[in-house]
């Protein structure tokens, strides 16, 4: 009988801070309580998958470079590649000390009914939420993507590189962004974001 218990840690220990004034400042907070599952789509299963997604989430498979949002588990489906999506969803268990993050893939499998190859990515990324009037000005220092509409707007998502780091950026609303970067370099990623804010404040 095991006497041991494992406890979970998030990459940035739940970082949550405001920089600058409420009116034109920037809020930076780690996104918690979510799971992320990669969903690879075989060519001959795409229609079936789209149907299953529609049934489960009442949303269509997004176009490449977009994400769709469903109220079911607050799920967002990010279409980063032609043959692959990321499914980001609220997962209460993911936050509990002794989570079995093993529930993420089965959860999505249930929804997609084996029409996709799934792989848990929940622990692969550090996820930061950036919001506030000045966010674009700060991101201008590191993000090569044109964040002005119509090039990029709410429901846009893409992967790029910032300061030698791989970053997925998605726009959730006016002046609201979610950024993912590989977990092992979370500290460098955080430094990159905070330096940008510092440099433009």
């Amino acid at each position, binding site marked *: 009988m095991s006497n041991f218990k494992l406890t979970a840690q998030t990459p940035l220990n739940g970082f949550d801070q405001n920089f600058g004034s409420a009116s034109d400042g920037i809020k930076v907070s780690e996104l918690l309580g979510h799971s992320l599952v990669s969903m690879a789509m075989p060519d001959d299963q795409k229609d079936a998958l789209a149907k299953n997604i529609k049934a489960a989430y009442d949303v269509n498979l997004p176009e490449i470079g977009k994400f769709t949002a469903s109220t079911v588990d607050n799920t967002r489906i990010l279409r980063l*590649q*032609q043959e692959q999506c990321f499914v980001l969803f609220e997962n209460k268990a993911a936050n509990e000390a002794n989570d079995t993050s093993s529930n993420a893939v089965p959860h999505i499998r249930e929804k997609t009914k084996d029409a996709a190859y799934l792989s848990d990515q929940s622990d692969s990324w550090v996820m930061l939420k950036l919001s506030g009037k000045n966010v674009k000005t700060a991101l201008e220092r590191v993000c090569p993507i044109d964040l002005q509409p119509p090039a990029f707007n709410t429901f846009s998502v893409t992967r790029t*590189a910032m300061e030698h780091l791989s970053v997925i950026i998605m726009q959730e609303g006016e002046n609201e962004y979610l950024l993912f970067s590989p977990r092992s370099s979370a500290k460098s990623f955080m430094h990159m974001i905070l330096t940008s804010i510092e440099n433009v404040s």
Partner: protein
Amino acid sequence: MIINHPLLGPRDASEFVYLGDACLMNRPAWVGERIEGEDANDAKTAEALQQYHDYVHLRQNNAGEHKELWYHEQGDRSWLVVTRNTITHEIYNVELAKDVALANKTARASQGGKK
């Protein structure tokens, strides 16, 4: 440089990794299993070695239009076939390599059918 990705639109070339001449997609077919002690082996092997030598080492190095492979490593992980001028760097065409590879395969198959 900017590569106009067929799915994602214009992206800075620094997001990509360059491989080289698109002929690297045309990997020679497998020579097949060679049974030890068979006379035909040597000739078969020599021919295959020559094919592979050319495939691996003799690439197009045009001054002008050049079809080449780029990998969108900091993007959607797709391999692209980019047609670019190596003197002016002008880019004429960008395609998904997978589409090109499938088309080549179909073309080869139909050619084979004619024979």
